[in-house]
């Protein structure tokens, strides 16, 4: 199987995009805040943006090498790029859109993506989820060696999004192509990608499997992105051998991590338990505050207590009779409180 090699260095508006990444037969998600340079990476690979310095190759096929002045135009790079808003040709039918990439497998692709019935429709007349499938079919019609997906689910509403995410996971699994996907949604990244790369201000902050990122986030951004509560405060040594953090929100918390000065304390919602009175257990951190909100998502309830959000089962929430406005105690262990440096 071919591997995509990417090594880029390019000045963007307010920072330098500088990253090196290899993508084998896997799906890698590039995540990060808006304007971090994620889309520029895809455009550079596709040949739509020429980086100042860099090398891009699919196995031994060099697409770009600024050192030896190689720069293939987009039409000579075997990429399938799915644009954020799909960029379907509005003046062509679904069939003609797919055939634009290559005529050989049009019927097979229309069939496979369940859009054969829409073959004669214009893109303007079909739904968002259908457009996504047309865009994917069109990108694959070219028989690409690399698949690039720019925010593949962001143009969809929440309901369609869940279904299309499932379809996409299946397709990516079957294709087995080196796939690089850009997203700002951690849930999309965890459900679709084998590895996640966190891109902030043009630099890869951390690359790892979704569970690695959750287990040891490299910094406050990664922790927040993966869903942790972030509590800012000042860390100092404590007599009990732990680090004491005076939180800006007014509480004091303890962590097993070593740190001094300004920090962000990260704790995942599922590591926080909720009780009426502070329990006599191994947790050392107890925040007493009224419940600000309760949001139920299937069998889980997200309970906002003071500065943190706790995730408990709906069953527990009912058993405890949690109501908005009631004062409860949120508890978590010092070992579940990670201290991360902040800029």
């Amino acid at each position, binding site marked *: 199987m071919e591997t995509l090699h990417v090594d880029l260095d390019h000045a963007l508006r307010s920072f330098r995009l500088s990253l090196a990444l290899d993508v084998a037969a896997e799906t890698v998600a590039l995540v990060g805040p808006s304007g971090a340079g994620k889309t520029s990476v895809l*455009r550079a690979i*596709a*040949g*739509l943006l020429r980086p100042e310095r860099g090398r891009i190759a699919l196995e031994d096929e060099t697409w770009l090498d600024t050192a030896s002045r190689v720069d293939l*135009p*987009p*039409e000579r*790079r075997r*990429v*399938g*790029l799915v*644009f954020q*808003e799909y*960029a*379907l*040709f*509005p*003046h062509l039918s679904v069939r003609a859109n797919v055939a*634009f*990439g*290559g005529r050989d497998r049009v019927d097979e692709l229309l069939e496979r993506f369940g859009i054969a019935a829409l073959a004669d429709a*214009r*893109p*303007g*007349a079909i739904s968002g989820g259908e457009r996504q499938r047309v865009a994917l079919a*069109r*990108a694959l*019609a*070219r028989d690409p060696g690399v698949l690039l997906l720019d925010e593949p689910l962001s*143009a969809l509403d929440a309901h369609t999004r869940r279904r299309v995410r499932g379809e996409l996971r299946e397709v990516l699994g079957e294709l087995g192509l080196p796939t690089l996907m850009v997203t700002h949604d951690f849930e999309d990244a965890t459900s679709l990608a084998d590895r996640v790369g966190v891109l902030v201000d043009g630099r890869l902050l951390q690359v790892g499997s979704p569970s690695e990122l959750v287990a040891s986030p490299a910094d406050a951004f990664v922790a927040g992105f993966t869903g942790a509560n972030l509590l800012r405060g000042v860390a100092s040594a404590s007599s009990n051998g732990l680090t004491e953090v005076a939180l800006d929100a007014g509480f004091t918390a303890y962590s097993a991590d070593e740190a001094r000065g300004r920090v962000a304390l990260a704790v995942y919602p599922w590591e926080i338990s909720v009780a009426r009175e502070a329990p006599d257990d191994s947790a050392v951190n107890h925040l007493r505050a009224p419940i600000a909100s309760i949001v139920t998502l299937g069998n889980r309830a997200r309970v906002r207590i003071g500065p943190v959000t706790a995730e408990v089962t709906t069953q527990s929430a009912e058993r405890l009779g949690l109501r908005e406005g009631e004062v409860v105690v949120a508890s978590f262990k010092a070992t579940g409180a990670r201290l991360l440096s902040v800029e």
Partner: protein
Amino acid sequence: MRPSAFGVALWASACVALSFLLLPIVAIFSELTLGELRAGLTSEVARDALRVTLETNLVAMALIVLFGTPTAYLLASREFRGRTLLVTLVELPLVLPPAVAGIGLLAAFGRLGLLGGTMESLGLDIAFTKTAVVLAVTFVASPFYVRTAIAAFEGVDRDLVAASRTLGAGPARTFFRVALPLAGGGLGAGAALAFARGLGEFGATIMFAGSLQGVTQTLSLAIYQEFDVDFDTALAIGALLVVGSALVLFAAKVIPAWRRSTSTSTTLFAPSASR
């Protein structure tokens, strides 16, 4: 609800403006009986002028579209130094007095002009010929097309052009299969505007091509020649030009809308902001 003083002022101003603009047009038609109109239009002067006008304008339009389209695409799709200057140059004939266009064309292509010697050695003498009419019309009308065409190409979503490239189409195929069809409405409108301008061309033509009946005398020139000879014929030709110009202008407004409704779609895919 009582209309405000401001509302009344707006309507009053609009009435004055519209009356003033419509009065000459109404006058052309009210001064003519149907019989005079028919007689005027079937006169030899009018028939010759119509033939010359159509022949020269069609050739001019072909030249404008053939050279103007690639020029507009280049100016719309490439970033380079001096681009603004080039766009300004292309648009210059829009604001140039027709007399300047006429003297300029004479100075360039006339017997004693810049290219006069070269053309003479090739046995070409174009001043006061039909070719001269074509050049004059092309010169004054082309900015109307090129300007609109640049805007039409700029209105094509860049992602669609990029998508075409990543799907394996080179720059030429991308132009013909994506940019051209999507800009088609705007190009049609631009062509209609240029055609309307060309139909009425007067100043540059009379200086560079003269007013020879059956050779260089277009409809506008025929009106000018006839108005102190046979006022009714002049009026009849005027009426013909009013109707022709109005139809072309109407086409310029309708073509883009019609193209949009048959070829494009929702806001999601509408070629970006400038549309």
